[in-house]
């Protein structure tokens, strides 16, 4: 079992915090924590400062890392100011420090041979895909990317990221950028056009489920980073579970922080929030 062998807890300094569209791009000086991070891993950050009523960490997918630079190792996140915790974080000034645990969780699997990969991101779900794209390109793969969001401001796609992929497709629900509609509406076309072997995705659960439908229909692989609410991020609380089919066919409620966040899309029993799928290991006998 993967037990976050390389995870560290440390106080890290914010060395940059910039608004980009609806998000904040934040850079942290994290020392050698940066050495061990792989695309798909996440970090968990304490929010609210001393005396805060917020007792749980917040998880953020790692956007990218640099081993060395002006600040030693750095780690970057793309954070949406959403509720109290993320608003607190994105409001922090330069040089403020936060308590960070990472890198945590599973990472995207990289094929040993060059492939045609389609990377699909929803909202800030694009963040981990750029580092992944780089790795795939380094391995000789073709990388096409499609990013979707409700509106243009919620597409996170920095210029260098756009340049690094073979093609970039944008969809927005309101049509304020790219094609009007949801990412799934353009997937079938892209899969055919680019002869896609594998889909990598990150975004809201409903989007991942829809992508899996297409992956199943077209018979291609799908690795996705899921996002269940996490209380601990380190595997000790059992709040973050999704029903996952293991190699033997057994469905278990599996922790998305340790057995994920990156999972094989075909192994996840989708749309099961609010229920325990029949036949799950230990499910109540009805």
């Amino acid at each position, binding site marked *: *079992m993967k*037990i*976050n*062998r390389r*995870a560290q*807890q440390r106080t890290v300094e914010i060395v940059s915090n910039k608004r980009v569209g609806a998000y904040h791009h934040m850079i942290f000086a994290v020392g050698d924590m940066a050495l061990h991070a792989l695309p798909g891993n996440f970090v968990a950050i*304490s929010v609210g400062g001393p005396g805060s*009523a*917020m*007792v*749980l*960490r917040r998880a953020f997918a790692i956007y990218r890392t640099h081993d060395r630079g002006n600040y030693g190792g750095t780690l970057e996140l793309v954070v949406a100011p959403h509720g109290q915790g993320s608003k607190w974080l994105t409001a922090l000034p330069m040089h403020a420090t936060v*308590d960070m*645990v990472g890198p945590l969780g599973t990472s995207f699997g990289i094929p040993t041979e060059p492939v045609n990969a389609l990377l699909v991101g929803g909202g800030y779900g694009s963040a981990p895909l750029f580092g992944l794209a780089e790795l795939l390109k380094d391995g000789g793969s073709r990388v096409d990317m499609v990013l979707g969001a409700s509106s243009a401001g919620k597409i996170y796609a920095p210029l260098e990221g756009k340049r690094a992929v073979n093609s970039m497709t944008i969809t927005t629900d309101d049509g304020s950028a790219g094609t009007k509609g949801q990412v799934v509406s353009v997937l079938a076309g892209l899969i055919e056009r680019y002869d896609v072997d594998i889909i990598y995705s990150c975004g809201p659960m409903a989007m991942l489920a829809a992508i899996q439908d297409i992956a199943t229909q077209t018979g291609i692989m799908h690795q996705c980073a899921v996002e*269940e*609410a996490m*209380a*601990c991020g*380190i*595997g*000790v*609380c*059992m*709040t*973050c*579970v*999704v029903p996952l089919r293991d190699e033997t066919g057994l469905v*278990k*409620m599996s922790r998305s922080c*340790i057995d994920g966040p990156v999972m094989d899309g075909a192994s996840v029993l989708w749309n*099961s*929030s*609010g*229920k*325990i799928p029949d036949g*799950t*290991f*230990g*499910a*109540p006998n009805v």
Partner: protein
Amino acid sequence: MELSVRQMSNFNYSTSFQNAVFPNPIFTASGCAGSGKELAQFFPLTEIGAVVTKSIMVKARSGRPTPRMAETPSGMLNSIGLQGPGIDQFLAEDIPFLQKAGARIIVSIAGESVDDYGSLARRLRGVPGLSALEVNISCPNVENRGQVFACDPIASRSVVEVVRRVLGGELPIIVKLSPDVTDIVSIANEVIAAGADGLALINTLLGMVIDIDTMRPKLGGKTGGLSGPAIRPVAVRAIYQVHQAFPKIPILGMGGIASGRDALELVFAGASGVSVGTATFGNPNAVLKVKDELANLLIERGFTNFKEAVGFAHRSADV
């Protein structure tokens, strides 16, 4: 700090629950330390008093549907629903790991019927390297319309009697009570009469959060257990009341402990040991932090022996 560390050598931090002795009184809380493996990534399990395992049941159990958690002011709700692999797999996988790691082990057990508790005790009786059993009676009793054992003095008593009978004097039994009762002292009285060696106080409070956007209960299981600093005053009160009534019965205290000062409140109220639960979610090293801070606070206050501090608020209150 310097000073405290120097004086540490003269400070006796050990505690005991009947014949089980622990080098220090800071434990994990049941259900808040995974299988032990996950925390071992952050510190050696030998550093803490004991690992209290998540409550194990006879059979494997999927637990409740998601969402399973909601953050609340200074606390959280959980509705894990006792997900676990069942006693067989637990004995085959989790216990060997903890034994190898050199951890002192307190196994928490939970059942749906009085018989379940008996079976679990039977399976655990001969297992080497266990320090004690924690008997979690905050579970619905399927034989009594799902009423939680801990809310019913008779049912609580029956569970403890069975476990006591099966174990003989082999392992100390620590019975974990729910604060969601009209009179916790009377429940304590029943389980002590039935043979409990110690009590664990408190389990979570029953709570609910409604998602104002979906306009329905946020948790898959609708209600959940409230834990974290929010409930600490309830834990202090329960421990104080029970220690007052039964000063000789050791108490394992828990409920919102995130620092040495928090733990000190429980110790002064009457806790011989302190479990750290929810705080570990916010800080993987919370158990160690509490251990170090509590020692320093006790030393600062002139205690040379942890046990002298247990229940101190009762003695100083009447001066």
